[in-house]
């Protein structure tokens, strides 16, 4: 039997099948891109911030440097 043979259902539901296919395909692509961005950009940034924090803590515990108290972010509305 030919693999390309279509049933009546394929014809009547063509729009739904194609639409759903595009939605699911788009979802997979998006999650893939999102994962790549998280791995390439956000995780290295987090690691850098953690390393910086550890360096500050090490300096402060050795008595060479006392970190300034954290300044709260400026209120963005005047």
């Amino acid at each position, binding site marked *: 039997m030919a693999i390309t043979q279509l049933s009546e259902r394929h014809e*009547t*539901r063509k*729009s*739904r099948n*194609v*639409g*759903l296919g595009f939605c699911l395909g788009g979802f997979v692509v*998006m999650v893939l*891109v*999102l994962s790549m*961005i998280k791995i390439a*950009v*956000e995780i290295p940034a987090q690691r850098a911030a953690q390393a910086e924090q550890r360096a500050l803590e090490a300096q402060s515990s050795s008595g060479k440097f006392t970190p300034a108290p954290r300044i709260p972010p400026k209120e*963005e*509305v*005047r």
Partner: protein
Amino acid sequence: MTDISQIDEPKEAEFSDYVSLLKPRVMSLVVFTAFVGVVVAPGGLAGPIHPFIAFFAVLCIAIGGGASGALNMWYDADIDRIMKRTKGRPIPTGKVTAGEALYVGLALSFFSVMMLGLATNWLAAGLLAFTIFFYAVIYTMWLKRSTPQNIVIGGAAGAFPPMIGWAAVTGDVTLTSTLLFLLIFMWTPPHFWALALFMNSDYDAAKVPMLTVTHGKRTTRVHILVYTAVLALTALWVAFTPIAGWAYLIVAVVLNIWFMLGAVQIIRRDESEAEADDYAVERRFFKLSLLYLFAHFLALLVDKILIIFGIGGPL
């Protein structure tokens, strides 16, 4: 004997029918206001989140908005069949069953909230979940059929998207993002009451207690003017936040004067006058309200671009 050829075949839904379950026109407003919320948030264009994640956040907010639309259509299928404005929707026409709409709504709600939380932060996701709950449960199931204040309180659901967009970028809710919320919140009553003035028979037939049905059109006209005045004050307040500049101020002044004049025109008319011209003034005011909201958010976008190019800045 029944002629079998006369019996309607069950209608097969097209993909577009499922898309219309999500109320694409309402979604376009959600997308635009959420996008502006993302862009005008501190560091929105070149800041803490990657542009793709910002795009993904807007998409999740749009899907969440669409999901609440599907849940609304599921619950309101009975009155949608009665109202002229809504009887062409997929459930009243028999293309999609109410059960299907419920499943689509629930699945997309879960998906959009989880994806937004994973992609950005859980404050934004929580706000989106609350928005869907507010629209589907508080507004649709409770307020819509029980009080003439339905669209005043229920309007909050449509007002959240810029606040969610802002929270997706900053992980925070601030006075400025609350003002963006308030701008849409105060805009909703005059917008829907203008619609109710010329679609009153629809709401009356469906027994939806809109202000026009419960308190009459005269009271509704007064309410439109009062809310328009409060809206104008809110819109002008936004002009003095760090996200707005001269473009916004000019748009806000011009459009609020125009909108107030429209509301004054509405209150000065009586029913015989309105019926004589088929509610021409009310229809114009309704269309103006669409331009009003779009222009205010567009102006914020323009101001942000001007700031980036070093031309503009806060007032």
